[in-house]
């Protein structure tokens, strides 16, 4: 079971709700993925279009726990105000905290992230910070009161997979008891499986599923990959070695002769 901020989940996938071709495709993808947590955002509401009201009806139908984000915020002040609005709007203390440094890379702005996390944790939020693999930032976030860390695999939407695997492994080793979720940059089910094999607790996905040729089928593929990766981690992986090692017993091999020449 995955335990986050005092709640337990059987699925280890968190699924974003953006970019699907239709509400029905989103609904089917969520259902087949088994995801019990879906991410959402808040945006300016037009008095004429009232877009958000219809979307909220869909989210309520899904019946999943919502994890609102602060996507698009560039300062701690913006992120704090957005989190406070999200708490009232969605009725949850959970916040996926994003403070973005750069619109091209969408990389976390770590100084603002720590500043906002400190304020929000003190206000009683359960802060799930979107961060990098940086160890000192991770320590500061935990010091601020975060009980979960969500390092990126690669820039949001880039589909490049785990571009700094050794650093992610170090983070895992350094924080053995902190739930770690790979958030952003996953492109394929094998990337997700790789993160899970490394002992990461969960994976947060959006674009790789929403923009797939068949998002529903891809959601199923990711669900299986995440489960497979977790099972492999729990089972214990074979250490790679430099030389071959026969899997078939050597003893009793027919025609076997000791090679005295070597």
């Amino acid at each position: 079971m995955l335990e986050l901020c005092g709640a337990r989940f059987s699925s280890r996938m968190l699924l974003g709700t953006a970019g699907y071709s239709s509400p029905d495709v989103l609904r089917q993808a969520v259902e087949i993925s088994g995801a019990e947590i879906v991410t959402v955002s808040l945006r300016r509401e037009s008095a004429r279009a009232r877009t958000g009201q219809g979307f909220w009806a869909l989210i309520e139908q899904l019946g999943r726990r919502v994890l609102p984000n602060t996507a698009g915020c560039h300062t701690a002040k913006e992120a704090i105000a957005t989190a406070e609005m999200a708490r009232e709007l969605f009725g949850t203390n959970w916040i996926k905290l994003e403070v973005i440094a750069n619109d091209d890379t969408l990389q976390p702005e770590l100084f603002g992230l720590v500043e906002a996390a400190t304020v929000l944790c003190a206000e009683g939020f359960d802060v799930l910070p979107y961060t990098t693999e940086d160890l000192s930032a991770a320590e500061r976030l935990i010091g601020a009161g975060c009980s979960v860390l969500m390092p990126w695999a690669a820039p949001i939407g880039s589909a490049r997979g785990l571009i700094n695997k050794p650093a992610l492994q170090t983070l895992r080793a350094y924080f053995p008891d902190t739930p770690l979720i790979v958030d952003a940059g996953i492109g394929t089910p094998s990337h997700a499986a790789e993160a899970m094999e490394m002992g990461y607790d969960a994976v947060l996905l959006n674009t790789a599923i929403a923009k797939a040729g068949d998002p529903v089928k891809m959601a199923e593929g990711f669900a299986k990959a995440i489960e497979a990766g977790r099972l492999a981690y729990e089972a214990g992986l074979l250490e790679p070695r430099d030389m071959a090692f026969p899997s078939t017993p050597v003893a009793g091999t027919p025609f076997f002769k000791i090679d005295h020449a070597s």
Partner: protein
Amino acid sequence: MQILLNGERFATDAHNLDELCVGLGFAQAKVATAVNGSFVAAAARQATHLTEADEVEIVAPRQGG
């Protein structure tokens, strides 16, 4: 009075944030608000007076990653 509503200039006679929200048809809507960069809880909208050039944000749930 001119305010900035969701980033656009907007003329209103609303005295407070609650009046503005009701006037826009958001009385029963699922929205959250901020004025001049700070969150304003639903319960505090009536006591939040609006003045010229205030920057008001009214937001609602939306898709997100």
